[in-house]
């Protein structure tokens, strides 16, 4: 559960499931090459880091509480990312797939709503635009 300034290593993030887990759901957000019709070459992610860390932990804990059995891990990148790089990864392991999918989906929605993280889309001409 953390922010990282380094590229997210998805293979390392996919840890071992517990013996009672039958389902793993991983969501990865990736930098796209366009946004609402405008070309994007990179995205700069900025966070209120100390608060974001605790908000991500809170998202994971609240989702686990609503979906008993779900183990939730979240990793969010900050800094300047190129197209194709993962910006966020959410891993849920659970006994059954219904829980894994629902908890993973809920976690990304909560994160987008609450985590104090911002992004500036960089256009081909080098200008940037905060997404608000």
């Amino acid at each position, binding site marked *: 559960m953390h922010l990282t300034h380094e590229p997210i290593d998805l293979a390392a993030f996919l840890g071992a499931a517990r013996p009672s887990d039958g389902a793993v759901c991983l969501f990865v957000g990736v930098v796209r090459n366009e946004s609402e019709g405008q070309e994007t070459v990179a995205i700069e992610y900025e966070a*209120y880091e*100390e608060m974001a860390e605790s908000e991500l932990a809170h998202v994971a804990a609240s989702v686990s509480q609503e979906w008993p059995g779900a183990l939730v891990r979240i990793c969010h990148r900050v800094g300047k990312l190129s197209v194709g790089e993962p910006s*966020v990864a959410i891993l849920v392991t659970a006994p059954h797939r219904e829980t894994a999918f629902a908890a993973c989906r809920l976690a990304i929605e909560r994160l*987008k709503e609450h985590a104090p993280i*911002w*992004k500036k889309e960089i256009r081909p001409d080098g200008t940037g635009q905060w997404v608000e």
Partner: protein
Amino acid sequence: MRVRVLYFASFRDAAGRSEEDREIPPGTRVCDLWDILSGEFSAFSRFPGMPPAAVNRLYQSGDVPLEDGDEVAYLPPVAGG
């Protein structure tokens, strides 16, 4: 009393700074400080009402009174993920 104010993303651009210390009168609430700042930084007034605010890294409502040494941040619309 004195509080520390943090500015992020478009608010940082608008304020021209990422943080500062502010002297405020005792009893100043979260919403009162926002009124002071948005009077000062005209770009803030494009927001109808107060944006979400954090005091000491926790979301707080506008009527919470600030205390000496608090870390305060007003958050432009978040866009994580």
